[in-house]
C-alpha cells in the first residue's frame, strides 16, 4: 500500500518536472552535448589518429542512439504511465535526424570531400551505405513533416502512417551498423537487440492479449502523435 502510494507520489513529481517550462530546454541542451563534445575533441586532437573516420563514426552512433531513444519514448510512457514523456518525442526524433545529417555531411563533405561520383558509387555499390542512406531519406521526410502544420496538412491518419516508417529507419540504421563492421562484433547487435525489444514492446502493448489482460488497469493512449 505504502509503496504504491509512494510510486504515485514519485510519478506525480516526475510528471510535474517534465511539464515544467524548463524541461524542454534542458533536454535540448542535453541532446546537444554529444555534438559539442565531438566538436571539442575534433578541435583538440582528441579524435585520435584518424579524426575524420572517428567523426563519421561518432555522429553515426549518436544518430542511432537518439533514434532508439525516440522510439523508446512511447513504450516508456506506457510502462511508467507518465503521459508527459510524450512532450519530448518530437524533439528527440529531430535530434536523431540532426545527428544523421551531421553523419552524412561528415562523410560527403569531409571524408569524400564532395566527390559526388565516389559518393554515388558508394550508395549503389555498397549495401551498408545503400541501407544507411535509405534510413537517412526516411528521417529527412519525417523531419520535414514534423511540424504541427504538416500534421494538419497531411491529416492525422496519413501523417501517422508516414511516421510509422520510423521503424524502417530504425531497422535500416541498425543493419547499416551490423553490415559495416568486420567479423562478428557485439556492439551492432546490441543496438539491433534494443531496437527489436522496442518493437516487441509496441506489439505486446497493442496485442489483443495485452488489451484483455490490461483492460481496466489503465487507459491505452491511442493518441500517440501529440506533443
Amino acid at each position: 500500500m505504502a509503496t504504491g502510494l509512494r510510486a504515485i507520489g514519485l510519478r506525480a513529481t516526475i510528471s510535474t518536472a517534465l511539464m515544467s517550462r524548463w524541461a524542454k530546454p534542458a533536454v535540448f541542451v542535453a541532446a546537444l552535448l554529444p555534438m559539442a563534445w565531438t566538436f571539442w575533441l575534433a578541435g583538440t586532437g582528441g579524435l585520435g589518429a584518424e579524426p575524420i573516420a572517428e567523426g563519421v563514426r561518432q555522429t553515426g552512433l549518436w544518430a542511432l542512439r537518439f533514434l532508439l531513444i525516440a522510439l523508446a519514448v512511447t513504450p516508456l510512457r506506457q510502462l511508467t504511465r507518465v503521459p508527459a514523456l510524450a512532450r519530448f518525442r518530437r524533439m528527440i526524433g529531430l535530434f536523431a535526424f540532426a545527428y544523421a545529417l551531421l553523419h552524412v555531411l561528415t562523410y560527403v563533405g569531409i571524408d569524400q570531400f564532395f566527390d559526388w561520383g565516389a559518393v554515388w558509387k558508394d550508395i549503389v555499390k555498397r549495401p551498408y551505405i545503400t541501407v544507411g542512406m535509405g534510413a537517412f531519406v526516411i528521417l529527412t521526410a519525417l523531419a520535414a513533416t514534423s511540424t504541427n502544420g504538416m500534421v494538419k496538412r497531411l491529416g492525422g491518419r496519413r501523417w501517422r502512417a508516414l511516421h510509422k516508417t520510423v521503424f524502417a529507419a530504425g531497422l535500416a540504421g541498425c543493419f547499416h551498423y551490423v553490415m559495416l563492421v568486420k567479423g562478428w562484433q557485439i556492439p551492432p547487435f546490441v543496438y539491433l537487440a534494443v531496437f527489436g525489444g522496442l518493437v516487441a514492446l509496441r506489439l505486446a502493448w497493442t496485442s489483443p492479449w495485452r488489451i484483455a489482460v490490461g483492460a481496466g488497469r489503465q487507459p491505452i493512449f491511442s493518441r500517440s502523435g501529440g506533443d
Partner: protein
Amino acid sequence: MLLKVRAASEAREDEVTPRALFLSRRSVIAGGAAALAVGGMAPLLSGPAFAALDAKTTIQPPDAKLDAVTPQKSATTYNNFYEFGTGKTDPSEYAGTLKTRPWEVVVDGEVGKPMTFGIEDLLKFPLEERIYRLRCVEAWSMVIPWVGFPLAELLKRVEPTGSAKYVAFRTLHDPAQMPGQRLGVLNWPYTEGLRLDEAMHPLAILAVGMYGDVLPNQSGAPIRLVVPWKYGFKSIKSIVRITVTKDQPPTAWNRSQPFEYGFYANVNPDVDHPRWSQANERRVGDFFRRKTLAFNGYGEEVASLYSGMDLRKYF
C-alpha cells in the same frame, strides 16, 4: 632465388644520415633508462626487450615527401589487432597482457630441417630498417619504418623441400593473454598464408621492430610478417608457427568472409572490396584522400609474381 630490388626504393647513403643521428639520440635515451634501472628495476628494464634496434635503412619510398613517415604515435595507437578488441585504440590500450618473453616460433612442414627459433635467435638475423607503405583494406594507409629481416632468410635455414608450395602462419592462441580471443569475431587463432615465391620475395620481411625500437605489443610483438604490397591483414602479428605446405593454407579473413577477402589480397585499386572502394585511401594524418597504387606502389618489384593471373578472380 635471386631477385634484385629496384634501385628507386633503395636508400642512398646520404639519405641514411639523419636516421643515424636519430639512433644516436635513441641510444642516449636508452642509456638513461639503463642508468635508472640500476636503482632496483634492472631485471625488468634490461635485456633485449627494451634495447633500441640498430639497423641500417635499406629500402624506403623514392619520394620521402610524398610518403612521409607516419608519426610513431599514430602508428602505435591506431591499428587493428582484434585479439585485443575491435576498436582502433583497443590494441594500444589492452595489449599489455601479451607476454613476449620467452617466445618461440616453430618452423615446420615441407622442410628438410624443421626448427624452433627462440626470439633471441630471431633477433640475431642481420636486421635492416625498411620504410614501407602500409595499406589497410579499410582504405587508410601509413608509412612505417620497420626493423626486420627477409622472411626468405628464415625459410632458407629450414630448407623447403621440392613439394613446398605455400607458407602458413599462425598467431599465438591464448585468450588469457589475448582477451579478444574470448569473442568469436574471427575463427581463432588468426592464420595467414603466402605462396612460397611470395614468401621468398625480398620485400617480404619478418619485423621485430619499428621506429628503431622493438615492436610494441599492439603492433604484433615480438615478431610479425610485413608484406607491403598486400592489404594489412595479410601481415600477421605475434607469430608462433610458420608451416611450409603443399596446399594453399586457410587464412583467417578468407574463412570468415570469402567473398570479401581473398587469399592473395594484393593492393589493387581496380578491384573493389564490397564495403570499401579501393580506388583511393587516406594516409593517416592527411585531410585529402589519395589514389591507391597497384600493389601499393611495389608493382615494379612484385607484379611479375602474378603474370598471367586474373587478379579479379584471385583477389
